[in-house]
């Protein structure tokens, strides 16, 4: 029987430093057969492994139609991710995936999109935005809302500037606190919602970020009568085996690694907003 826990060897094809603690890796399975059979959807994740360290779940940011490219954008938050940050082109590591349920990109077709991101370098939402902008004909108006703690945290300015130039796309940026040169707004992401011209029956909300922010967005969108099944978020939990076996990522009756990480509000409503669930 094939051992689903076992990674396969992969090679670093390219690497790029985004900021001091954020970097991107492009990976390829060294076995061409495994590489050619690899398919994913935005919002799914891979497990990356460095020998002697634990595996880490990292979301995939490349476009699923670029079948030969597996891109990850990774923040150095611990020992393993810091070591991943030291990898150079040609270095080998372990890779298995893709895992989980990604964004409802098909389900959301023909609706307006509100994509809200809190914090910086939120890879799952960046991959989602790139995905829908490349297939803009399938979607209605696209509202991109990004909030950061401090204006200096804001990265990928060029990407946002580019996105702003698309027709039917609005980009709203805000920082909790900002220096004097910050050209955007100050305050929470929810401040923009009054200006959002959306039809609640024809809108899909997708978000990624701190749970506190997501709570506020859910609350606001519910006030606007957006149905819970159209409010989606990517949850962060301790995804450890990625196969729904080890139990570490459980959230209520869900295994975040296989039932998520993307959920709609109705699925998680019973557990929503309680500390330590």
């Amino acid at each position: 029987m094939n051992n689903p826990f076992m990674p396969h060897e992969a090679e670093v094809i390219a690497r790029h430093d985004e900021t001091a603690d954020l970097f991107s890796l492009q990976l390829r399975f060294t076995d061409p057969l495994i590489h050619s059979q690899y398919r994913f959807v935005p919002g799914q994740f891979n497990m990356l492994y460095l020998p002697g360290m634990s595996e880490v779940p990292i979301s995939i940011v490349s476009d699923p139609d670029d079948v030969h490219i597996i891109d990850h954008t990774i923040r150095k938050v611990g020992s393993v991710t810091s070591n991943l940050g030291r990898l150079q082109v040609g270095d080998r590591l372990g890779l298995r995936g893709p895992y989980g349920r990604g964004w409802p990109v098909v389900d959301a077709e023909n609706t307006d999109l509100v994509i809200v991101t809190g914090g910086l370098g939120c890879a799952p939402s960046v991959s989602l935005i790139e995905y829908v902008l490349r297939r803009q004909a399938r979607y209605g108006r696209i509202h991109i809302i990004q909030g950061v703690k401090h204006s200096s945290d804001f990265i990928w300015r060029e990407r946002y500037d580019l996105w702003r130039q698309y027709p039917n796309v609005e980009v709203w940026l805000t920082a909790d606190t900002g220096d004097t040169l910050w050209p955007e707004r100050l305050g929470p992401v929810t401040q923009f919602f009054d200006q959002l011209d959306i039809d609640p029956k024809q809108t899909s909300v997708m978000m990624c970020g701190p749970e506190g922010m997501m709570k506020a967005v859910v609350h606001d969108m519910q006030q606007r009568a957006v149905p819970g099944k159209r409010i989606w978020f990517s949850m962060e939990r301790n995804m450890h085996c990625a196969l729904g076996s080890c139990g570490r990522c459980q959230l209520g009756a869900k295994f975040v690694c296989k039932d998520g990480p993307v959920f709609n509000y109705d699925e998680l409503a019973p557990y929503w907003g309680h500390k330590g669930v």
Partner: protein
Amino acid sequence: MNRQRFLPGERFQSLIDQLKSAGYDVVGPQVRDHAIVFDALAKVDQLPIGITDEQAPGRYRLEKSESRRCFDWATGAQAIKPMTFVARETLWQSERLPDGSLTFHETLVKTRPTAIIGVRACDLAALSIHDHHFMRGAHPDPLYSQRRQSLFLIAVHCMRSAATCFCTATGDGPRARSGYDLALSELDEGFILEAHTGRGLDIIVQLGIDEATVEQIERADAGIGQAAKQQQRILPVGPLQEKLVSAVEHPRWQTLNDRCLSCGNCTAVCPTCFCQTHVDEISLDGQQTSHIRQWESCFNPDHSHIHGIVIRSERAHRYRQWLTHKFGTWEEQFGRSGCVGCGRCITWCPVGIDVTEELAVLCKGLVNE
């Protein structure tokens, strides 16, 4: 032919021998370190003959029983969980070659056909849940599956309940209903054997024994009925998922924060708990690693750790997670409660926290204490 046969007590060794000659390693209950545990069984006198267990919250003692029976006890320190979901095992290994490349090797499990004598109804129900968890998902677990498929199971219908048993409340016992090859009912003079599978029947046929009498069968049924009647602990009427999930802010959890040791004993003795952690072991020269899976518990803060944050940071959160999952959200995941009523979590909690008591309070709704 599925009639019940009678094996005289003095011929029990022939069952062990028959299993061996059919190619099985035989495992059975025996006394070790003041408890009944499963271990390799060669001779009938290794069984806990004339031994019974006295169980209470936080307490387990073995005593002389009034009979000379082999299975006059309720539950041992563990179900058969360690034989399928192994406490610590290598999942795979990796090796860094001198050219910098990395290879991965599957771990091969060496199994031998193994017959386990003395599996209780609750333990069988738990095994069936684990089969669902480890073998029926999108990614069947090769190590579990291989071990599971090597087992030949000989159930024993319970004729005695410990004070902590509540399998009648979960509907899983005291009579074993499915998932076994052979079942035994123990009477003072011997055993009634019934086969549930063809290979179980083969063993009975080879023993060349007579049918059990109607009186013997009735006496066995009465014994099983008596085990059911002895049980005192009950559960709130289910399903419990909605009740427990909506009790998320119940003040009772805070009292558990004070009482619970967060030691994880309840989860380790629970025959259905499946949580695990995967850790790496590095060889002396640093070039090989073993990726090891070991039992873990939702009572460990590490369990819900994500880069710098522990989601269930308080003991009360973790007790709530365990109880809500076991008796509540398990229903959505597995189509039934995660509890089989074996009572081990009550007995083996060092400070004797009783889940049935906690559930009674929590499922009554919010009360001001």
